[in-house]
């Protein structure tokens, strides 16, 4: 990994401490360590309980009287039941599909737009930019947006989960700021060699912006994966609902998963473990993906991305 990690022997903090900084006291170090552990536990402990309960057997859950903190054996029973067809499997597939298609669509449109506005002095780029930035200052409002989506006949189609929320103007501005930072000499020399704008974008600008592209892709993907509201107002067919909406029905509203009622009544499955398993399905993709992109997050948050 980084040079700093290898240069230091375990246990020696002095190598990292600047000369002017006073050596830390034992009490100070202990306080800091304990605080950091507590802060991390506040995040991780609830997740731990959810995961452990989802992997527990019906007996364990009955014995502990509910949520399981200390694992006693691991069973994938509830995941098997949920993922072998039925409501939750379908919802998970819908969510994956919407997230993949939506992210591809959002990224394509955003990258093209950001590049199209990133060339200095190109015609009309200022008025267009103004038109785009202006949308950050006043939203159209819930009701008229709903009416337009309904008027276009998008309700009860998956397009209603993608198109209305496909663009995040802030993401476009961040991409644009990075594309503007790409070395102009490279772009000019490619142009002299006869490359068009699309080729320059694909072969030069995008490869040089991999970090920010990864971050924005993650942002869009998480946005689609986590979306609940659009499906709740635009979709009326319960069979079309994505995972977040099914999770709301099963966990917040405490409904029984369709098709599994019998297995729950006979004590074969635990309703609590099923709820927890659905929650794990919802958190797994983001928990697995986000750490990979973590070191680039800062670049996706660029403040002052708006530049004429």
């Amino acid at each position, binding site marked *: 990994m980084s040079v700093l*990690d290898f240069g230091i022997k375990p246990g020696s903090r002095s190598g990292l401490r600047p000369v002017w900084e006073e050596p830390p006291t034992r009490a100070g170090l202990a306080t800091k360590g304990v605080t950091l552990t507590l802060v991390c536990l506040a995040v*991780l402990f609830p997740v731990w309980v959810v995961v452990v309960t989802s992997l527990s057997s019906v007996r364990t859950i009955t014995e502990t009287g509910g949520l399981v903190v200390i694992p006693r054996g691991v069973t994938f029973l509830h995941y098997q039941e949920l993922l072998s067809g039925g409501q939750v499997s379908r919802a998970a597939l819908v969510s994956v599909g919407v997230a993949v298609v939506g992210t591809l669509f959002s990224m394509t449109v955003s990258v093209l737009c950001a590049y199209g506005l990133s060339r200095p002095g*190109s015609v009309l780029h200022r008025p267009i930019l103004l038109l785009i930035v202006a949308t950050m200052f006043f939203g159209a409002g819930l009701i008229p947006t709903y009416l337009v989506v309904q008027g276009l006949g998008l309700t009860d189609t998956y397009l209603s989960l993608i198109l209305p929320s496909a663009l995040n103007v802030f993401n476009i501005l961040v991409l644009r700021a990075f594309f503007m930072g790409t070395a102009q000499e490279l772009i000019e020399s490619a142009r002299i060699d006869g490359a068009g704008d699309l080729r320059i974008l694909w072969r030069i600008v995008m490869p040089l912006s991999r970090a920010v592209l990864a971050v924005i892709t993650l942002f869009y993907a998480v946005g689609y994966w986590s979306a609940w509201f659009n499906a709740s107002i635009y979709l009326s067919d319960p069979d079309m609902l994505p995972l977040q909406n099914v999770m709301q029905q099963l966990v917040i509203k405490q409904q029984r998963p369709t098709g599994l009622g019998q297995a729950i009544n006979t004590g074969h499955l635990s309703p609590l473990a099923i709820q927890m398993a659905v929650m794990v399905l919802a958190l797994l993709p983001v928990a697995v993906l986000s750490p990979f992109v973590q070191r680039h997050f800062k670049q996706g948050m660029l403040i002052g991305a708006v530049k004429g």
Partner: protein
Amino acid sequence: MAQSTVRPPAARRDAAPAEAAVPPRASSRVPLRHRLRRDRVLLLMVLPALLLLLVFHYVPLIGNVVAFQDYDPYIADNAFQAMSQSPWIGFEHFRHMAEDRLFWQAVRNTLAIFAIQLALFFPVPVLLALFVHSFARPRVRAVAQAVLYLPHFFSWVLVITVFQQMFGGAGLIAQVLRDHGHEGFDLMTDPGLFKFLITFELIWKDAGWGVIVFLAALAAVGPDLYEAAAMDGAGRWRRIWHIQLPALRPVVALLLVLQVGNALTVGFEQILLQRTAVGPTASEVLDTYVWNTGLDNGNFGYGAAIGIVKGVFGLLMVLGANKAAHLMGEQGVYKR
């Protein structure tokens, strides 16, 4: 991975000289027709995004006309036709708003939640950033950041279900209390604590994420400042007070402006998901009231009217907050 926090944000600074070094495409002397031809590929690239914003942002802006109509969604099969056939009633909805008790309650709740979150949520990322920054080891920082950022990527449904499992009537705390012979406990259905509950949820979800910008600002402080301060005898806390907090000031000002500008938008989805547990008196905010009157009860015109009032006041608040930031010598969201 571990090194990321030590690196100053470079890209923003690189952008400016690169831009200045290359002469912009000559613009003023070439006729518009030729420039359109020259840049047609660039314009085509912008077109899809522009169309999306036009259809899903600017057309709905015009759709706000239903606020001046007695809009009847059942008059035609299509919203656009219904819009053209519904009768106009002028400012009737806006007059009604003034004497609508529920509307004013939503306003009060919205402002109360904004105030609570400003006081309880806003300082947390700053403190967390100072804390994380105080660890010298890159590995420790990277792990702490990974953990802190994680809940930001959880959906609201997930965050609320997690809270339900911890603090709800059938949650872990209630379970432990009952095991030890105490009475049960349910934070999720207590109307009196609702505003604090959602603030607590917000802190759990997003306070860690808020750390990023502050950490970047702290990483940009040169070591010479600390060194000079230490030479002058400034201890740990004085260095925080005289170096780190001033370094965070512009970022804090910017985020404050954004926060105030968004004051009327507090946790829409978050509240919508758990309002049934506590009832509207404690939980109704402007956004949920719009949803409730417009989409749930079918009074689209009135819902849109409330949306307009909220939008106008929201815009005024952004401009006002930005003006205030300028007066205090900060940059704000945009320059003058």
